[in-house]
């Protein structure tokens, strides 16, 4: 759990990172609490999606689809439980994002800031699309798929992710 080891796929050489015990759980709880806490004082902070960034980060770092999707499920359900949305809305979205991030992280080098920015932006949009889709199909709630706010949120969260992921890298064992 505390070691870093290599994952070889074909001829590529991708490193799988490990974290200190309790680091992931603590990070997740802090992110979720911050997500529900910041907007109370900073209304503009509502544009952030810290649980999603955490899901993406640990998915890309752990590079295990099973643990990635389970982590996404946990974070999503926790976020749902702290919001007025029904349990499962963000759970489904983050489960899928966790799976995708882990799967892509196992194939690509995601350590470069540009790659992290691009991947975070892409996952953010996919996450939003899943949320809108679930709302429309399962909850009969119509939401626009693309808005200018989404574009801004995507950019802001992607920029934030570059710095956040840099800080989270400090928590790795190596």
């Amino acid at each position, binding site marked *: 759990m505390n070691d870093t080891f290599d994952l070889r796929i074909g001829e590529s050489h991708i490193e799988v990172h490990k974290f200190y015990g309790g680091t992931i759980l603590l990070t997740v709880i802090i992110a979720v609490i911050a997500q529900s806490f910041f907007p109370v004082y900073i209304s503009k902070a509502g544009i952030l999606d810290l649980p999603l960034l955490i899901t993406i980060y640990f998915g890309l770092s752990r590079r*295990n*689809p*099973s643990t990635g*999707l*389970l982590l996404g*499920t946990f974070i*999503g*359900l926790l976020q749902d439980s702290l919001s007025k949305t*029904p*349990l*499962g*809305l963000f*759970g*489904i979205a983050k*489960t*899928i994002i966790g*799976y995708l991030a*882990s*799967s892509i992280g196992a194939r690509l080098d995601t350590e470069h800031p540009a790659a992290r920015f691009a991947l975070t932006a892409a996952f953010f949009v996919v996450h939003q699309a899943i949320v809108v889709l*679930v709302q429309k199909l*399962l*909850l*009969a709630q119509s939401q626009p798929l693309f808005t200018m706010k989404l574009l801004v949120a995507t950019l802001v969260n992607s920029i934030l992710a570059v710095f956040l992921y840099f800080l989270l890298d400090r928590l790795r064992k190596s």
Partner: protein
Amino acid sequence: MVALPSRHRSLFLLGGVVLLQVLLLAIQIKTVESADGSKSRLIRVWSVSAVSPFERSGAWGIGRVRDAWRHYFALSDTARENESLRRENGQLKLEVMQLQGKSAEADRLAALLNFKQKQAKVPMVVARVIGSNADANSAVIYLDQGQHEGIKKNMGVITPEGVVGKVIESYRDTCQVLLLTDRDSGVGAMIANSRIQSPVGGMGEPLLNMKYVGNDDEVKVGDRVVTSGMDRIFPKDLPVGVVSDVKPGNSFKQIRVRPSASLEKLEEVIVLLTTDPLSLKPDAPIAGNAAASPASPSQPAAQPISGLTNSKPAEKHP
């Protein structure tokens, strides 16, 4: 058990986790579905939505099979039912024909009665045709009235459409009528508009022949031919027919006249019970006088007699 590859395992895990959360959503969410406004759980809506297409397809398939069975295989009773319905249809058709015949007969009798009431001073009797000629060379009919009703030889016979013929023999309860189309028949007639007089006789065919109209006289197809009263059998201005063909001849025109009365479809006729010259009442003149010649009301036309039949035109012979 067969071990799944790690990648597939995670896919199954993803599907399972997502499905569980979808169910979790379904349990929580209620949506307005009922007509009375009550809410039902989303999972129930989904279940119904998921199952109903199969139910609909099943019902459609069963319906098709049932229809196929009923329409193509289970026909043992259908043949009997079809035969029964066919017989019933035939009986109904026969009844309809009888009713139509009775209705037409009632109309004709009503017209005759109306005419008789309007011409109360004209002695006449309504008779039913009970027979026709026994040979092909003559045009004769038999009526159900005879001497008992005052019918005598040479009395005129008409219908609401026009002249029919004259009585050639009278018996106690029946009489024999020579139709206009017979070769030996004839009636004093004239062209309604030009007042050109000439007898009209039969030729043993459906059309009549107007015999003595000079080549210099103007006669056109469509001119109406009426009785002239000169034969002292028929009153003046009864419709005889319509000119259907005009050709120049050696001395006289060859004029063909289509009879106004439906001589081949006679069922009831009127026998004029006098051989004296008759005149119709002014309020019931020969119809078409005004129409025939508005500028000269005195000139009649060969149209159905007013009060006799104005609901349907006279049927024409071919």
